[in-house]
């Protein structure tokens, strides 16, 4: 990314928002992926079909005919 801003004490080349943003995005992607894999990947999810939801909501008894 080639957009830059200048500073009275710094050369224009010193300010590189594109590089800064890319580094920040990389850190974010690593942290986000880590959290997802550690806590939220499909293996961590409980079953949530109709039967499980009925059991949780109304303490329903089971039936062969129902999903």
């Amino acid at each position, binding site marked *: 990314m*080639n957009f830059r801003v200048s500073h009275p004490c710094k050369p224009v080349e010193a300010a590189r928002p594109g590089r800064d943003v890319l580094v920040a995005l990389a850190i974010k992607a690593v942290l986000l992926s880590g959290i997802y894999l550690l806590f939220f990947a499909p293996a961590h999810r409980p079953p949530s079909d109709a039967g499980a939801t009925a059991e949780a909501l109304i303490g329903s008894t089971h039936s062969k005919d129902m999903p």
Partner: protein
Amino acid sequence: MNSLNLIDLSRLQFAATAMYHFLFVPLTLGLSLLVAIMESVYVMTGRPIWRDMTRFWGILFGINFAMGVATGITMEFQFGTNWAYYSHYVGDIFGVPLAIEGLMAFFLEGTFIGLFFFGWDRLSRRQHLVVTWLVAIGSNLSALWILIANAWMQNPTGAHFNSTTMRMELDSIRDVIFNPVAQAKFVHTVSAGYVTGAIFVLAISAWYLLNRRHVEFAKRSATVAISFGLASALSVVVLGDESGYNLTEHQKMKLAVIESEWHTEPAPAAFEIFGIPDTKAHETHAQIKIPWMLGLIATRSSDTEVPGIFELVQHARQRIVNGIPASSALRTLRKDPGDPVARETLKTHAEDLGYALLLRKYVDDPAQASEEQIDRAAWDTVPSVAPIFWSFRVMVGLGFFFIGLFAVGFYFATRRRIAESRVFLKIALWALPLPWIAAELGWFVAEHGRQPWAIEGVLPTFLAVSPIPASSVALSLAGFVVFYSTLAVIDVFLLKKYVKLGPETGSPPRDVAAGPASGLIPGTVRR
């Protein structure tokens, strides 16, 4: 039954991630529009300082956007893992606006933000202006779809319950999109974002003016921010009034709690500007009231009552009792889907099924609940009074402060004395965090005020939580704190860095007829 610890942790995690996410959102909403306004002036006048303003505030917008993008996806992680029953029960409806947001608004925003930054060399002035406006529109459309989803949690409309699939299923997407709560919430929220953007630009401009740096740039930026901010701050109050009116229609308990109105007052009800709610004694001490005001705001009439908490608890109790047959019928239907009596009973009492589910906190089968348990469940429909009462008042107080700040700024700006009014500039600088505080308090009032419901009147929060180990939720919460704190530190660090560097000024004007001219910054000339 899920333990309270798990429920509290799951709620805390969702609240923390939502509130962190909303640190980035209002600035994106506000800055995107301010940048589009500045670039419009540049295209109309051709004066380079407006292009410098567009570029500088555009860089700060880009940093905030990059830091904020995908921070909301963590809430979607949680839907599947921490809120599995919520996702199953209402995912068919709640997921629709979320999907549209991702497919339409986010990609619109994401695509054009690339063109905004990389297109200065490749697009004509007018083409680039169109791109900038599309970024702003995309940001606002993102907010629209998210708020449509959220509004459905406050006022579930256009759907019915299917006992076979155990899902709420969509009847009318039109009702979901044109939900009156969504419309009021959208305009109120984006206006608050505009105020945030305006305060951000004003505060940084004030800092430049106080330090005698980039004076012409800062004066113009401050003037744009003040004008835009004044209109937006007035809109927030007017549109907030519409949100209040919606509460009267759809969330009476939330309104009564906001007002700490324990008993129904004769119409038109008074508005409490001060009071000390006592949740144990069920009364409010040291009240200072403005006669008629609440009645006029909330009902837009002088002869309609605003129901108080006690009366609403009695109403909730009646709905719990009415819902018990629906709960029993649903249990029967889960065993025998063909039972015609149960099906008819469920149909008759379906509207109150959610209220009967409140009893599941105390008893496995709501039909076995005692009178005392029904009373306790009815009082569970009252969210925490004092935090909501005070959060609302601080939010409203800040809203009026913003109007005053922008009005004073407008006075100085119209007399071209903005750079000399140092007291105003210092107040404007120190006001920088206030719009975020107001916005977070607004969300607290909206979401904590919705409790005990995940979906108002349909699904109690404690039944929506997944049965996963509380330790797992605590660990992932710690992970989120690290994640968001890291992002917040990087965001503040980068914003401070580029604010201190200041704008690039004096770059040569572009020749529209000749097509793309100077690069984003290379080739520009510092004044």
